[in-house]
């Protein structure tokens, strides 16, 4: 097991359109936005939870890699469960835990100052939308909070290397996942144009152990 290493894949997520990842509405006051977004409790700035990235990426990869549609995540293709984990399906009898090799991270807002310079007073916008009844033609308005376009978040994923033969396939899946995320959306209301994201400055860096990360960095750039 001497080749055990940890590789941190990091970069920047930039929002190409407003992003809405819903938070719990338990504490919203009357008169405030109907559907608020999730925020960092310490700074009160928008945040992208690691669980949202992980879930969305896995779901997109399942469409691309599964031979047959899987009813639940444990039945995903072995190449996916190896990266994301499963609570059954491992071992000889297919009844053991499959350890995931990816660790996601919460993404925090990076360019607060830059947004401020552009004249923003808050880091979220309130979008007003409508539903129009087809028979009575009565409008039913709603308000949705979004993280503003142009916000940049840090993106970090730690990949655990334990089998050098599988690194190439794993990396192919990760890069595919990132590409799929760019062509899909993150968060809610994606079919109405929300949640377009772009990855910028992706690099791979070995943070523990002595794995050679040069090739991986090239793959991410390419």
């Amino acid at each position, binding site marked *: *097991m*001497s080749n*055990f290493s*940890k590789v*941190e894949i990091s970069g920047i997520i930039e929002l190409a359109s407003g992003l809405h990842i*819903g*938070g*719990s509405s*338990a504490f919203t006051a009357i008169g405030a936005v109907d559907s608020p977004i*999730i925020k*960092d*409790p*310490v700074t009160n700035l928008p945040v992208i*939870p*690691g*669980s949202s*990235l*992980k*879930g969305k990426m896995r779901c997109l990869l399942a469409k691309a890699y599964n031979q047959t549609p899987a009813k639940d995540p444990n039945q995903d293709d072995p190449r996916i469960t190896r990266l*994301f*984990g499963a*609570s*059954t399906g*491992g*071992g000889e*009898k297919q*009844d*053991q*835990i*499959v*350890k*995931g090799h*990816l*660790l*996601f*991270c*919460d993404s*925090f807002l990076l360019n607060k100052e830059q947004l401020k310079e552009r004249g923003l007073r808050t880091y979220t916008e309130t979008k007003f939308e409508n539903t129009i009844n087809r028979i009575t033609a009565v409008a039913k308005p709603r308000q949705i909070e979004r993280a503003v376009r142009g916000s940049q978040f840090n993106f970090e994923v*730690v990949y*655990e290397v*334990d089998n050098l033969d599988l690194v190439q396939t794993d990396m192919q899946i990760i890069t595919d996942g990132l590409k799929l995320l760019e062509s899909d959306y993150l968060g809610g209301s994606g079919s109405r144009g929300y949640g377009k994201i772009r990855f910028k400055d992706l690099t791979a860096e070995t*943070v*523990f152990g002595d794995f050679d990360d040069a090739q991986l960095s090239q793959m991410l750039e390419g």
Partner: protein
Amino acid sequence: MKRQLCVFHFKNVHFGNGTLESSAETFSASRLFSALFLEALKLGKQADFLKVAQSADFVLSDAFPMIDGVPFLPKPIGYPKFEKQNFTDLKKVRRTAKTSKKLAFIPFDEMTDYLKQTADLADLVKLQNSFFNLSYLTKKGQDPYQVGIVSFKQPLYCITSQNDLLNELLESLQYSGLGGKRTSGYGSFELRIKALPKELEEHLSDHNTNTLWMSLTTSLPQVDEMKKSLTDENYLLTREGGFAYSEQTGSPLRKQDMYKFKAGSTFTHRYSGQIFDIRPQDFPHPVWNFSKSLFYSLEV
């Protein structure tokens, strides 16, 4: 082995204390030990690590907050003793008792003041409430659930022995994280290793002749130590249980429940504790629970 201060700079964590919906604000030594052991397994150094941990002078404390660079200690359970002559203003006594109840941590340089009842309790409570923030993350969908998340504004620290293997594992653990929901972004931290403040080190030394000891680790005496250490003691019990993580068994099995003395329990006789094997029945490998103790001498 010499001792060191490991400072953990967390952002968001989930330290489950029985349920997914709630989170503790610190972690016990056995949580850290188990994480380190699983990390050692990945590196193939589990036997070495167990040997180091079982050696008599290896110590690991629970995690406590470090606010503005000052290490905090748990509140000594059962102290200070309220003397009879203090009962002049009953209202004031009740108010102090309530404030004291809310207090969980005390800065180590004010410990003597606290025991002499000269510390400003309201101030300490305010300080202690400023180091973290508890929030709830709601996951919607077909099968909705809630996760209790603690966001830290200040670091946590724990006292460990100085050891190269331990430091290597801690280094590796930074990127694996500690606590629950690790793969979706909770529990990763930045580690700084610092020297122990001299005054703190003196209180931890074995040569103290004081008669009162406060445990800094949620621990349990060995069977033969139990009777001796349970004379003139003040303690709280806490339960440790849950599922055993294993890649070698089928359905997840529950560990044997353990009830241990909480950090902050006070004893007149020290005990050493041990690393217990709490594997479920017919389990293929041991499941270790770190229950060794570390004591701090109190000047009462």
